[in-house]
C-alpha cells in the first residue's frame, strides 16, 4: 500500500450564522462539514462528489488553510496542518495548492499574468529567477509566452483556468485541490483542461483532491470517489467499483440521475431510483441519518440513529443502516421493512 499524503480525521466545520432566543442565546450553526474521515494516497486522484451545499468546497478551503476546522485533525504526510492554531508555515503552504472554481474571480483583474505567476515564486522560491520560471510555467501549460503581459480579462475562461493551474504549480506542490475546476467552463474547453491536468499529474507526480458535482467526469478522472451528503461522506470506493456496484441509496440515486443518450447506457445503469426532493438545509439537518427524508429504503431506525461507516467489501465503505453489523441492531426493522432489505 502506498503512503497516505493527506489524512482527514473527524473533520468538522460549523459556521455560526446568527443567534436565536433572547435570554438563552444559542448560536444558529451551519454544519458545513460534520465529521469526515478519509485519506489520500500519494499520486492518486480522489474525487469528492456532492450536491451544492454538501460541504465539499468547505473541505477544500480548510485543506489550504482558509478556514480553521471546528473539530478534528488534518495531517499532511503525518504533519498536523492545524498544529496549535498558528499561521501555517510556508513549507506546508508550498506543498498544498488550490485551483478555484471561478477563474474570473480567482485572478486579479488588475495584475498581469506575469505578476500573478510571479507572486508564488517570490514567496516560495525566492532564489530562482522569476521571469525564467514564469516562462517555464507558461510552456508547461502550453500557453504562449506572449500572454505574460496580458491581463486576465483578455483571456478566455479556459485560458484563465489554465493560468490558475499554472499558479498552483508555481510553488512545486505535491497536492493540488481542484475545487470544481471545470464547472465554470464550456464543455469543449473542459476536456482540454482535464487532459492538461492528467498530463501534469503524470509528469509531476501530483496528487489531486478533485471536488466536483459531475459524476460522469469522475468516471474518467478519479481513482477513488467519495460521495458527500450534508457535510458527511456516505460512500467511498475505487472508481471502477463505485460505478459498477454502488451501495448507498444516495449514490444509486445520483448514478441513476445521470442523463444518458442510448438504450444500452440506460440498461447499464445499476438500478433505477427516482430522485426525489431537494437536499435539506444544512442549518436544519434531519435527525438520524440525514438522507432519510429522500431515501427509498427508509426504516424507522434511520429517523433516530445516525449510521456509521462500514466496509461492504475491501476498499469500499458505505454509511447506511442497511449494511450495518451486527445484524441484531437492525433486526427489529427487518420484520417491518423486509421488502426494503430484500432489494439490497
Amino acid at each position, binding site marked *: 500500500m502506498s503512503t497516505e499524503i493527506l489524512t482527514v480525521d473527524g473533520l468538522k466545520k460549523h459556521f455560526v450564522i446568527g443567534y436565536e432566543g433572547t435570554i438563552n442565546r444559542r448560536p444558529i450553526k451551519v454544519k458545513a462539514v460534520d465529521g469526515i474521515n478519509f485519506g489520500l494516497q500519494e499520486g492518486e486522484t480522489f474525487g469528492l462528489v456532492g450536491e451544492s451545499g454538501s460541504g465539499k468546497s468547505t473541505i477544500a478551503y480548510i485543506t489550504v488553510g482558509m478556514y480553521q476546522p471546528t473539530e478534528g485533525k488534518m495531517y499532511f504526510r503525518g504533519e498536523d496542518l492545524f498544529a496549535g492554531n498558528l499561521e501555517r508555515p510556508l513549507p506546508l503552504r508550498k506543498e498544498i495548492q488550490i485551483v*478555484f472554481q*471561478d477563474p474570473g474571480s*480567482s485572478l*486579479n483583474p488588475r*495584475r498581469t499574468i506575469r505578476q500573478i505567476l510571479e*507572486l508564488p515564486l517570490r514567496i516560495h522560491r525566492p532564489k530562482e529567477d522569476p521571469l525564467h520560471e514564469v516562462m*517555464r510555467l507558461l510552456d508547461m501549460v502550453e500557453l504562449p*509566452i506572449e500572454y505574460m*503581459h496580458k491581463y486576465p480579462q483578455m483571456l478566455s475562461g479556459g485560458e484563465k483556468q489554465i493560468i490558475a493551474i499554472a499558479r498552483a504549480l508555481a510553488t512545486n506542490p505535491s497536492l493540488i485541490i481542484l475545487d470544481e475546476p471545470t464547472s465554470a467552463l464550456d464543455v469543449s474547453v473542459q476536456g482540454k483542461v482535464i487532459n492538461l491536468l492528467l*498530463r501534469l499529474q503524470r509528469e509531476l507526480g501530483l496528487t489531486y483532491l478533485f471536488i466536483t458535482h459531475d459524476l460522469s467526469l469522475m468516471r474518467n478522472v478519479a481513482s477513488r470517489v467519495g460521495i458527500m451528503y450534508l457535510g458527511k461522506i456516505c460512500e467511498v470506493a475505487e472508481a471502477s467499483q463505485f460505478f459498477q456496484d454502488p451501495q448507498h441509496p444516495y449514490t444509486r440515486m445520483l448514478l441513476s440521475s445521470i442523463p444518458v443518450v442510448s438504450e444500452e447506457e440506460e440498461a447499464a445503469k445499476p438500478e433505477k431510483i427516482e430522485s426525489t426532493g431537494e437536499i435539506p438545509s444544512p442549518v436544519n439537518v434531519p435527525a438520524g441519518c440525514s438522507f432519510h427524508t429522500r431515501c427509498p429504503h427508509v426504516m424507522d431506525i434511520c429517523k433516530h440513529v445516525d449510521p456509521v461507516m462500514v466496509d461492504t467489501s475491501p476498499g469500499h465503505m458505505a454509511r447506511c443502516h442497511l449494511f450495518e453489523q451486527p445484524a441484531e441492531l437492525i433486526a427489529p426493522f427487518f420484520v417491518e421493512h423486509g421488502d426494503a432489505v430484500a432489494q439490497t
Partner: protein
Amino acid sequence: MAREITAGELPAPITREQVNQLQRKNRRENLGRSWYKFSRNPLSVIGGATILVVVLMAVFAPWVAPFPEHAQPFTDFANASKPPSAQNLFGTDEIGRDILSRVIFGFRFSLMMGMIVLALVVPTGVFLGLVAGYFQGGWLDTLIMRVTDVFLAVPPLILALAIAAVLEPNLSNAMVAVSLMWWPWYTRLSYGLASTLRNEFYVSSAETLGASKFHILFHEILPNMTSPIFTKMSLDMGWVIIIGATLSFVGLGVQPPKPGLGTMMASGAKFLPDQWWIAMFPALGIVVVVLGFNLFGDGLRDLLSAEGV
C-alpha cells in the same frame, strides 16, 4: 502530448530584451485602448479639455492675464465699475481692477484648494478605509469606523465654519477645515469596497500562498478600488472648490485684496443687480471649473473600469 520539462533551460527562444519589448508593446496597446474608451464619451473629453485650459491659465496666469498687476493691491478709480468692453472683457470692479485678470488668478486659489485638500484627504481616508475593510470585524475596524461616524455626524459646512472661525481666517486654515470634514467620505467609500474585495478569490489565493498583508492590501485590493475612488476625486474636486468659495464668500477663506473667486463674489454681491458683472463672472468661473471636473469624472470611470484595461 507529454513533453520533457527540464528545469534550468529557457523553454522557447525568447530573450529578456524581447520580453521587455513585448511589455512595452502591450503597455502601448493598453494606453491606446484606454484613450479610445475615454474619447468615445464626448462630454468627458469636453470636461477634460476644460480642466486642461483652466489649469494652464492658472499656471501661466501672469502671462495669460491682460492686467496681471490687477491681482495685486491696485486701484484705478477712473475706470471703476465699467461694464464688459473690448478693453476689459469681463468689465472692471468697484475700484477699477480688470475682472478677467482677477478670475484667471482666482483659478489658482480654487485649484490649489482642491488639489491640496484632496492630496491630504484621499490617502488618509483610503488607507483607513482599506485597513478597516480588510480587517472587518476586528477592533481596528470598530475603532476606525466609529471615529469616522463621529466626523460624519457633524454637519460639514458648520464644522468647517467653526474651525475656520477659531483659527485665523485664511486659505490654509480653510483647507485644514475642509480636509477635516472630508476624509470620512473616503474612509466610508474604501471601507465598502475593501470589505467586498477581500472576499474575492484572488485575495484568498494570495492569502493561502502566504503573501504579506502589505502585498494583499496594496497590490491585490487597492488597485481594484481605483476606479470609484478616482471618479469620486474628480467629482469632489468640484465640491471642494465650491466649499472653498463658500468659505471665502463668508470671509473665512481667501482674504481681499487677493482674488479668490468666492471673495470676489462677496464684494460684487453688494452691487447686484446694476453692476452684475462684478459678481457674475467670478461665479461663472466657478461653474466652468466645477462642471469640467464633473464631466471628466464620468469619463474617468469608464476609463478605469477593469473590464478593458
